[in-house]
């Protein structure tokens, strides 16, 4: 080898690339072990008959083809029966879209409110963040305590004292109302996220645009419609899709509030019920795969609209 000429192994580029592999490998291992492997294993399980019986010999579980999927789709808990029995698939869609819409709407209103300077704005901002940062278990139980069906439940007690209701009501055990409550809960819990995102964008809007619009003849509504909303369009879309994806995947909120009962059963909770209620892991995995495929559609929309947008 001539002097001054480095081997490929010793070149700066090669050394940098080795360092890169070294530094990313722990993350890569964790991602593979905790996400990619379980995901692929779930796909495998969804095509096999895995139950409590053969759990300790899972790799010899019999292959059943699409049978798990057919059983999930025909399950009364999954399938739309009638307007009283929506089934988890329809409930999931209604729940996710409604609560996401409400989340973004409340987030937008809160952001608009906090965008204007006033006394105590900092404190208000901190209070608004509370539902988002508080642990889910504690806030879910506070809501359950307020909505407790016994006469001692906070809401029951207040309404009865005011004479608005004669007998205590079981809010979370009433079909329709229960779904409405979990939707409102979701919006209440996650609006601060939407608010923060929208507020950040809101404060970046060039103030002279409003001045130009004032001079052009725009009143408050026109300025909101043509400047604020136009400038927020991108962030609103991004927040909506992100929240939609996350809400569609959400398990703990509904599980803690209603356990999936009274018309609030959604796909993530149903997956849990199939797997750890009925111990039918094949069916649970099949249900999860259906959930995943719907999520992939949302994700595709997100990538194609939000991530491609150059605005």
């Amino acid at each position, binding site marked *: 080898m001539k002097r001054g000429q480095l081997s490929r192994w010793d070149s700066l580029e090669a050394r940098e690339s080795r360092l890169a592999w070294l530094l990313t490998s722990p993350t890569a291992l964790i991602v593979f072990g905790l996400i990619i492997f379980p995901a692929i294993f779930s796909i495998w399980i969804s095509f096999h008959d895995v139950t409590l019986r053969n759990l300790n010999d899972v790799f010899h579980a019999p292959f059943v083809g699409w049978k798990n999927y057919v059983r999930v789709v025909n399950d009364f808990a999954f399938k739309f029966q009638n307007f009283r029995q929506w089934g988890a698939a329809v409930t999931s869609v209604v729940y996710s879209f409604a609560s996401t819409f409400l989340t973004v709407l409340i987030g937008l209103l809160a952001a608009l409110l906090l965008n204007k300077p006033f006394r105590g704005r900092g404190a208000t901002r901190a209070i608004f963040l509370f539902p988002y940062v508080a642990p889910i278990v504690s806030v879910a139980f506070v809501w359950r305590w307020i909505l407790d069906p016994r006469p001692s439940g906070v809401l029951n007690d207040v309404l009865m004292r005011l004479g608005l209701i004669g007998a205590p009501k079981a809010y979370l055990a009433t079909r329709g109302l229960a779904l409405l409550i979990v939707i409102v809960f979701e919006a209440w819990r996650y609006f601060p996220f939407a608010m923060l995102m929208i507020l950040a964008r809101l404060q970046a809007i*060039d103030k*002279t*645009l409003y*001045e*130009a*619009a*004032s*001079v*052009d*003849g*725009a*009143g408050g509504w*026109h300025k909101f419609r*043509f*400047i604020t909303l*136009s*400038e927020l*369009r991108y962030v609103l879309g991004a927040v909506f899709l992100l929240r939609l994806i996350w809400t569609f995947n959400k398990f703990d909120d509904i599980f803690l509030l209603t356990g999936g009962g009274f018309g609030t059963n959604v796909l993530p909770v149903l997956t849990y019920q199939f797997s750890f209620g009925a111990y039918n892991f094949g069916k649970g995995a099949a249900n999860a795969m259906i959930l995943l495929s719907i999520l992939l559609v949302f994700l595709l929309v997100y990538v194609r609209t939000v991530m491609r947008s150059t*605005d």
Partner: protein
Amino acid sequence: MAEVVLEKVMKKFGDFVAVKGIDLKVDDGAFTVLVGPSGCGKTTTLRMIAGLEEVTSGEVKIGEKVVNRVPPKDRDIAMVFQNYALYPHMDVYNNMAFGLKLRKIPKKEIEERVHAAASLLGIEGKLKSKPRELSGGQRQRVAVGRAIVRNPKVFLFDEPLSNLDAKLRVQMRTELEQLHHKLQTTTVYVTHDQVEAMTLGSKIAVMRDGVIHQYASPQETYDHPSNQFVAGFIGSPAMNFLPARATLSNGNLILTGEGFTITLPSNGRIDTVPEQVVLGIRPEDLTGPVSEGENLLQVKVKVTEPLGNELLVYADCGGEQVVANLDPHQHVEIDSTIKLSPNLNTLHLFDKESEATLL
């Protein structure tokens, strides 16, 4: 079309008084330039005319009507902002049509007006472009177009050329001049650039610290500045100021300083002088070098800048810097001591204390 009148207009931001009770009358169809260094209150004044800033006290009138409590949208004004403030999500056509649409003008007329303005400004080919696809000069034209389609009573410009490069600035300056000539709309224009002020304004208001120091035609401000500040601000390169001692004897005014003694026949123009004065000589009023004569400035050359059409000589005169704009067809040696001859007819004299013009 309308005149704009400010009467004792004051603006306070907290304890800070930005504009200190100014009076200003912009005639119908006139082009008035507010000029001054940063923080002099010129933009605040413009924003008060626009209605974007509330007037603390005094009156703003547009066409006889007091508009202090009238919101910007009802003042029938159009404004061009320093950063253009084009609506980023609208194309050029809609940017220009926005104000017309809000005023519920028939669609056909909007189309005609936008196309007329676009062709006037040479941006017809860009009507479908978004602002971010345009160059600085094109954005500037759109911002001007947005103002002219409205056909308002008054145009307000807030440093509209400061974001453009030097060449484009000169080009847009002449275009604005032509535009005003064509439309004859009352215009108030804010700039910190005295060249812009001189070239554009039919009258210029020179401001400092919230006060208008002089409000006159460009030539008048150049020839007869009301005080030392205006004298130094208007004209480029700036006027030279030399501290001097003044005495009157036998009808002559004798000015002495380091490096010069100048005797002026006072001709009754001046009866009394304070002892401490400041002599003001514009660079273009100096000629030389001369070898012999009366009333000369003896200076030591520091730097020379041959510009082709003129030769700028930066020299030291008794510790003060003096700039002379000389005939370029000669050689001036650096570090040499030369004599310059000032034009005695255009000398300026200021009170050192009050900065007021004496002569």
